């Protein structure tokens, strides 16, 4: 089959896929706008697309600085924008809209998983037939990170988000920056402030991207220096030198531009629109310059980081350099090992993960104080007992430890079960040393007996509560005539079930077994 003439050849170009992928970055925003109609505020005039772009911009504005934008700050900022769009709505709605937009960019609905889409890749075979492949594309727009200094969560925009916003820039950062500046310079001379402002905006976004590139290199270095050793040996020193020169130029150039804009500010008294634009550009350039200064500092420190990491990582065991595979290397093997063998390595994992614990040591002074302290007298001012309640003595109390032990044993046995099974479980159970095993046994038997045939005692509710706590709230007990075969006990071997239904099922299956 030959390629259909109705399809343009561009579909088969390599650059075509790039365009598709660039467009795809806008999908989550479009989807969020789509789904907004299903929200309670969906009928009002909130523009989700604009708010989403504003959110990304807000995040980028402080990305890489000391204090990056937190989730709550971003919500407040967007809520303010939303408020001016629909002033008649209450502030809770504005906030809900803001949360909706940021959550959509984080993909919170799918637990912050990356956005995943499938795109088609068409290729033209030499024989003229069309081949189709489905390609999975995954990306994030915003993600949440822990600010290590402040301990709060901050938002960061991904390279995808930055690029999508800048408009699919795929050029070398340095060249692009130079081009933008040249353009800005010329535009200012021509007085084209609207365009100049756009260019300054782009220049700022490029600075953010540049900063992220450097961050990625340094992160790789800190993580495992061996993966980037080649780059450090060959490319990086030259690249840093180039960057440093470039930054120095940039700092100078932006300073000059700033002067230029300021002079425009002084002379353009005629048009207030131009004055305002120039002031905004001046602000932007100021921020660019701050960013470059910070980048410069990072560059200067980069070499030290490299040397530090080389020293640090050279003493790490080889195994420590790769990331562990927890799921298949640790968790699954632990699950499938014999329980007694797994206990030790499983405990080791928990202990290693826990980090250090400072041992609690008894202070001698405290100990002496405690020993010398006078014995605490029982409180004298106890309220006198009412005469009416002085009838029967209290039923013998069951200590909470015994109650807990009995509950734990019953919980560990799958119900329905015979009383004899429960009693054997008590005898086999791992009880704390000083606990009276006999008392636990008695309690289990009493609970079963009580549920089978409640006695008309005075204190009805306590007994019901205790039995329910041990055997479960809806437990039922029945007898089928078989006798108990546990030393120390005699009588019917009762059947304990969680509820009527399971008892009925148990009865049905045991009848089948007999017949």
């Amino acid at each position, binding site marked *: 089959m030959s390629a259909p003439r109705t399809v343009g050849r561009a579909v088969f170009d390599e650059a075509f896929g790039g365009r598709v992928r660039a467009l795809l970055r806008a999908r989550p925003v479009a989807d969020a706008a789509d789904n907004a109609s299903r929200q309670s505020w969906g009928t009002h005039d909130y523009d989700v697309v604009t708010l989403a772009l504003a959110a990304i911009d807000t995040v980028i504005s402080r990305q890489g600085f000391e204090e990056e934008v937190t989730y709550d700050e971003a919500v407040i900022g967007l809520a303010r924008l939303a408020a001016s769009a629909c002033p008649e709505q209450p502030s809770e709605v504005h906030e809900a809209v803001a949360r909706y937009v940021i959550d959509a960019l984080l993909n919170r609905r799918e637990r*912050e998983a990356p956005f995943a889409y499938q795109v088609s890749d068409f290729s033209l075979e030499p024989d003229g037939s069309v081949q189709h492949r489905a390609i999975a594309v995954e990306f994030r727009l915003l993600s949440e990170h822990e600010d*290590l200094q402040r301990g709060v969560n901050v938002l960061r925009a991904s390279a995808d988000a930055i690029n999508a916003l800048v408009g699919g820039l795929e050029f070398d950062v340095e060249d692009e920056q130079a081009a933008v500046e040249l353009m800005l310079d010329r535009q200012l001379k021509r007085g084209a402030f609207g365009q100049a402002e756009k260019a300054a905006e782009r220049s700022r976004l490029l600075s953010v991207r540049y900063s992220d590139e450097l961050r990625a290199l340094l992160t790789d270095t800190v993580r495992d220096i061996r993966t980037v050793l080649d780059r450090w040996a060959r490319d990086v020193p030259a690249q840093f030198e180039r960057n440093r020169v470039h930054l120095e130029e940039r700092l100078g150039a932006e300073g000059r531009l700033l002067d230029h804009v300021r002079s425009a500010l002084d002379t353009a008294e005629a048009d207030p629109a131009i004055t305002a634009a120039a002031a905004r550009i001046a602000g932007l350039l100021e921020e660019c310059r701050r960013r470059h200064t910070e980048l410069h500092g990072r560059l200067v420190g980069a070499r030290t980081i490299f040397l530090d990491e080389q020293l*640090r990582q050279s003493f790490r065991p080889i195994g*420590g350099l790769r990331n562990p595979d927890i799921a298949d290397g640790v*968790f699954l093997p632990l699950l499938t090992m*014999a329980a007694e063998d797994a206990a030790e390595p499983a405990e080791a994992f928990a202990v*290693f993960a826990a*980090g250090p614990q400072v041992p609690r040591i008894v202070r001698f002074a405290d100990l002496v104080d405690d020993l010398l302290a006078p014995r605490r007298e029982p409180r004298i001012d106890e309220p006198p007992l009412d005469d009416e309640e002085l009838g029967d003595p209290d039923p013998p109390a069951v200590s909470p430890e015994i109650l807990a032990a009995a509950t*734990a044993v019953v919980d*560990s046995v799958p119900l329905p079960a015979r009383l004899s099974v429960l009693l054997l479980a008590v005898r086999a159970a791992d009880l704390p040393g000083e606990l009276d095993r006999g008392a636990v046994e008695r309690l289990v038997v009493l609970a079963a007996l009580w549920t089978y045939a409640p006695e008309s005692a005075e204190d009805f509710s306590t007994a019901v509560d205790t039995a329910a706590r041990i055997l479960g709230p809806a437990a039922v007990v029945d007898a089928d005539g078989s006798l108990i075969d546990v030393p120390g006990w005699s009588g019917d071997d009762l059947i304990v079930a969680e509820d009527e239904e399971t008892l009925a099922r148990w009865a049905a299956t045991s009848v089948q077994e007999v017949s």
Partner: protein
Amino acid sequence: MTLGQQDLSDVGVLIGCALRPKQRPGADSDYRTLLGRYREDAEFHNAVTSVLDGLDLQVLAAGELGLVLGARRESVFAYRLTDLPNVSTVAHRLLVGLISAAIAAYVFPAPADFDDDRVRWVSVDEIERFVRDACDRLKRAPEPQMLEDVSFEEAWRTYDRLSPGYKADRGKGQGRRSAASSTYWVANVLNWMVDQGLARLAPNRGPETFQLLERFRIQVGELAGNATYELLAARRRGDHTPVVGT
């Protein structure tokens, strides 16, 4: 220049700060200064690592989070699981270990996930379901032919025996959750991680939901994961006394 008494005292101050997981260099200028010195002054650096080595501790990270330390098993600073509430038997310690590993496996399913420092959240329910699913898969898997060892019981059955126990406990609050329920143990481990500075409660995200902190990523990624892997590998080789965490 050799280190004087004041310098050695500073070494002690820095280690003291590092042993308090909730102390941050960002909020403490002394800590920040000493941390800077640790990173720049080779002699000071060596003094700190030597003292730590003597205490069977090692530095896992020295960044904005401060000095993050890992403890070898024999260290006096190694956590004793029996200090956890209700942990008294070997089976309990096994549960705590399994659940800790499950949490790590849940949030870092692949090795590459350790490189991503985005925030991770878990809830008691999610972890219970994650381990329960793993148990169910193992239950359905064909029985291995191991005739020679009849008393062999796999570790996952220890967890599988626990009831999720959620319905019976609904509305009664966490205090009433039985120690025989799996959710009790998951919550126990997560609360312990909060105490150790590895996680924090995230009440805005839902009931019993926790944020795992950067410290958890470091402890598991830099020490616990590989050290336990080595331990398991050594066991498979039949060597029961491997040297790990050095």
